């Protein structure tokens, strides 16, 4: 059971929700992309439904809400440390099925892979999710093959249709709020993509032995190690720590945690001056195998959710889905029957 809301109805709902929640959704930032006159779609706070970009895929994912690109963990003086206040309100995040599946991957790394991470937990505990119905895959999506096209367990669902906005919630409190601002009750199940234009196959028996395949050498020169694929990825979880001493007074400063990219120089720098995976193709191999090989060995499912953002954002037109599809031949090559 669900509800149909008019534009003014849903805006009233959003207004009421914003008393308790900061509303995050994919937003269009006019002229906010790399090239002049090109919009960027990324997550930001919204107050009305027309701000939610439903027609295009976001260039960057919801991940930034749970894992800020740069997060000050605490400020320090000679004697004390002080934590900045975290978000007062809960977050209500509008996302598609692939991204909802990415939340599980982030949780896996930050909550269940050893001791829970306090900074992640703090934001995650007060985060609820509204699924955006996804009727049609975009040109680079491959969610179906990664098993992330259908989502369950969301707090509410939302879909824009020709005759208004459809919402539902399995939770009484949210459902009542939606009903209060709705035009009428109606059947509503959010749309899920059933087929994608891009198909991928992760080969059975994929192992780290594929590291010796010749395909990675192609990316030594093609890849520019910019890290866009990692920053746009909803499941990349790596970070670096920075202790910053303010210039005016070198005795006070802050500790920051910033998103890190395994493609960018410096990622493998270690004390004593060591640095590993110098070749960009080796970085590509490391990333690929994390997404579709070793994560699965540990947690039982693939890290990659098939959103295709890495394909969309690569300035060198390197397609990650194409890399996945090359792994079969690469395995044959290293197994000596290629």
């Amino acid at each position, binding site marked *: 059971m669900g509800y149909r809301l008019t534009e003014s109805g849903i805006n009233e709902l959003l207004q009421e929700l914003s008393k308790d929640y900061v509303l995050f959704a994919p937003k269009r930032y006019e*002229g*906010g992309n*790399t090239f*002049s006159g090109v919009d960027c779609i990324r997550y930001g706070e919204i107050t009305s439904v027309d701000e939610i970009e439903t027609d295009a895929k976001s260039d960057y994912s919801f991940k930034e809400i749970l894992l800020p*690109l740069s997060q000050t963990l605490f400020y320090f003086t000679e004697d004390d440390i002080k934590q900045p206040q975290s978000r007062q309100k809960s977050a209500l995040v509008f996302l598609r099925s692939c991204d909802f599946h990415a939340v599980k991957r982030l949780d896996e790394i930050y909550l269940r892979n050893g001791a829970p991470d306090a900074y992640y937990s703090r934001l995650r505990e007060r985060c609820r999710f509204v699924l955006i119905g996804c009727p049609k895959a975009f040109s680079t999506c491959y969610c179906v093959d990664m098993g992330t096209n259908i989502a369950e367990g969301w707090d509410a669902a939302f879909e824009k249709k020709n005759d208004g906005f459809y919402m539902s919630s399995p939770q009484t409190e949210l459902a009542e709020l939606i009903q209060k601002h709705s035009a009428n009750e109606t059947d509503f199940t959010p749309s899920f993509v059933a087929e994608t234009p891009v198909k991928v196959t992760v080969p059975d028996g994929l192992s780290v032995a594929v590291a010796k395949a010749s395909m990675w050498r192609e990316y030594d020169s093609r890849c520019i190690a*910019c890290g866009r694929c990692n*920053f746009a990825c909803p499941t990349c979880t790596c970070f670096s720590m920075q202790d910053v001493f*303010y210039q005016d007074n070198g005795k006070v400063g802050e500790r920051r945690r910033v998103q890190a990219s395994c493609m960018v*120089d410096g990622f493998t720098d270690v004390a004593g001056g060591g640095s590993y995976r110098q070749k960009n193709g080796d970085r590509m191999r490391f990333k690929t195998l994390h997404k579709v090989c070793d994560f699965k060995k540990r947690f039982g499912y693939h890290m990659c959710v098939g959103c295709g953002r890495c394909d969309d954002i690569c300035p060198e037109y390197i397609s990650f889905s194409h890399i996945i599809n090359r792994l079969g031949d690469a395995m044959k090559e290293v197994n000596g029957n290629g």
Partner: protein
Amino acid sequence: MDINTKKLMKNAFRVTKERGHTASRIRIPGGHLDVTLLPFIQEIAQKYGNGTIHITVRQGLEIPGIKFEDIPKVNALLQPIISGIATRQEAPGTGYPASGTRNVSACIGNRVCPYACYDTTGLAQRIEDAVYPNDLHFKIALTGCPNDCAKVRMHDFGIIGMTLPQFDSSRCASCGACERYCRKKSVGAISMVNNRPNRSAQKCVGCGECVINCPTRAWTRSKEQYFRLVLLGRTGKRNPRLAVDFIKWTDADSIIKIITNTYDYVKEYIDPSAPGGKEHIGYIVDRTGVQEYLKWAMKDVKLPSCAEIEQTLYWGGPQY
């Protein structure tokens, strides 16, 4: 054969080496042309020319081999091109009303090029609309970014696109791409301080390399499009020289005002005995002094508050 060559040239035809033959010069502001106009050009070249066209250095087209007596027929055939490009005209069917102010040329701009900071063709057409028709010898060129592929520093007015980079520190992951690309491809205006980029406003040329290479949208473009206006470059015999920096971070309206003001200045001070009424603006400024020129050029110009004006202008180049 009796023909008024002054009128012929004003009508955008050329006196050529071949006696009794001319060439028709077609203006294409910004160098961008709808292909539906190409058949008309072909028709003129095949019917009245020698079956060839020349792509001029100023991005116009020239149809050579036309007989003087065919000029009225060529003017009639030029009409769909003139109307299609929306070139201002005195009366339909009479061809071009002036040729002194040259075609406004431009690089391909942000309709295609990733580096360009604005729509060069669009602004070229706006400028054309503000200055044409005019008999005075003005050369204006636009380029999308400080790479200056359009070589605008060889023109009276060179317009170089800029963006004022905006930095959102909360989106910076300290990857260092902005610093590296600025250092290697531009002017090295960025230094890393406490893992974050620090942009020197003085050094920055507004090329946007930091924005283009930022993987996280920490660097974005300013909503406003800015320009560097460079002045009075020229090729030629006596003293070829590159245009010099005049205003950094100016806007399109100010540029158009400065150009139209310069027409008033040239009308006042041009050498009345200049052959063909044609004298490079730079030589006039050499005569009157820069301060007198700037008095005219800056009349009623309202620059954006961030604009930086060079107070002293010195041109170089060889003196022959």
